[in-house]
């Protein structure tokens, strides 16, 4: 049974699970017709709250996502989940194991859970994920959750597809906290110290809170006019460049959860909602979505341009042959790039 692009689109808007699943496959595989699908879905998106959940492996992401979905379902909301697991850099194969944790939602088709592998190679993962999220949004899901291991730049990009990002931190990860400081912790809108019933949770909460406070100080020093920025410990005087009606900045809350028992999940969801409300009230949501869309346009153009260039490369004898000619000392990469792009540049100049 092969569904045409129109049938898939129609199916998704009609609430057909099979059509949604097949469309996501097409999007993932960059198969013929996927662009038409995503284009067609666009006007139906924008109503879902998109939540990113990330954290180190074993932090309890899948278990928490399961409890989140369950709680949303109990409130009568529908949920879509995209869970990303790493793929093997050698074979491209992957074991996608997040589904196992979805015990609270088995048999409930209104929780649409989709596993995706990182597929390493092209770096197109973030576009494919963002497009899959659009499909779930257009399908009519109230909440869409993106779950991914927070290990690298790519993951951070994916999580940026979300309106609200929660970073899960397991207890006793003091050293990790230090290590992660310049990475994943920066993107958090909400911290959840999961497995809060374990030893060391209090300390981790405290360390995170200290870090959040430190960030406060850091921001105002950078934004103020204090020259050297030495007097950090002094209470910051009003610097005048922040007008009185400037939006209250969001202060990243640190919560405690026990995903296995569901403890703290209600509060966690309430905080996510607070953040969503804050985004809406301060106009940050519009800014965020504009920025995200701009980034999408750039990425797409880059990918498309790269595909065009790949065709040009073939006409020039293929990249391997060109590399050989550089190694043989006949030319250099810059001259080749100029040659290959010359017709493109010519076309553009004519306009």
């Amino acid at each position, binding site marked *: 049974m092969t569904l045409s692009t129109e049938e898939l689109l129609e199916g998704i808007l009609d609430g057909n699970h099979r059509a949604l699943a097949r469309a996501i496959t097409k999007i993932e595989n960059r198969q013929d017709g996927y662009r038409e699908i995503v284009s067609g879905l666009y006007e139906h998106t924008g109503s879902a709250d998109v939540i990113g959940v990330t954290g180190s492996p074993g932090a309890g992401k899948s278990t928490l996502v399961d409890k989140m979905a369950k709680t949303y379902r109990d409130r009568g909301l529908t949920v879509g989940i995209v869970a990303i697991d790493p793929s093997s850099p050698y074979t491209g194969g992957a074991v996608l194991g997040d589904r196992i944790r979805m015990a609270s939602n088995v048999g409930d088709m209104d929780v649409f*859970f989709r596993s995706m592998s990182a597929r390493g190679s092209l770096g197109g993962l973030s576009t494919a994920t963002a497009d899959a999220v659009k499909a779930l949004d257009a399908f009519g899901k109230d909440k869409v959750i993106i779950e991914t291991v927070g290990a690298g730049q790519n993951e951070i990009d994916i999580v940026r597809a979300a309106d609200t990002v929660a970073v899960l931190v397991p207890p006793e990860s003091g050293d990790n906290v230090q290590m992660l400081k310049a990475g994943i912790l920066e993107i958090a809108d909400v911290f959840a110290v999961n497995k809060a019933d374990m030893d060391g949770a209090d300390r981790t909460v405290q360390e995170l809170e200290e870090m959040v406070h430190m960030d406060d100080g850091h921001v105002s020093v950078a934004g103020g006019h204090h020259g050297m920025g030495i007097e950090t410990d002094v209470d910051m005087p009003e610097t005048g460049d922040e007008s009185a009606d400037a939006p209250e900045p969001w202060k990243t809350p640190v919560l405690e959860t026990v995903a296995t028992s569901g403890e703290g999940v209600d509060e966690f969801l309430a905080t996510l909602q607070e953040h969503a409300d804050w985004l809406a009230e301060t106009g940050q949501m519009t800014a965020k979505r504009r920025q995200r869309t701009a980034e999408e346009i750039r990425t797409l153009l880059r990918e*498309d341009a790269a595909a065009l260039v790949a065709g040009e490369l073939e006409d020039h004898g293929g990249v391997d042959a060109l590399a050989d000619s550089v190694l043989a000392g006949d030319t250099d990469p810059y001259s080749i790039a100029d040659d290959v792009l010359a017709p493109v540049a010519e076309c553009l100049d004519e306009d």
Partner: protein
Amino acid sequence: MSQSQEERSIRCLVAKVGLDGHDRGAHVIARAFRDAGFEVIYSGLHKAPDEIVQAAVQEDVDVVGISILSGAHSTLVPKVIDGLKEYDAFEDTLILVGGVVPDDDKAELKEMGVAEVFGPGTPMADTIEFVRENVPER
């Protein structure tokens, strides 16, 4: 732009259905499929046929491999197949069964739409080869 930068990957669901709690074999298969470059979704233990259907439909897998060592294959496999049909997912999904299945039952399962039954001792390479050759065109 109509170029498709296709990167198709074979997606498999490795499913444990019913009360049988032996998943060593399923783990070995999952690992071997992964090393063959497939994307493997493992269901976990003790799943009901409904859950397998839900997973197969949502994940849009090409292959559903059902591992049953309890002898309940004649009860459980038809339920999975019926469920897949309900979602129009039967036609283009390759259904495999792994486990200890008597010859008579084997014929019966195949008649129902199971593509192949792999008994104990089947070389892993054979299973992978079979999947590669028989994965449905989509």
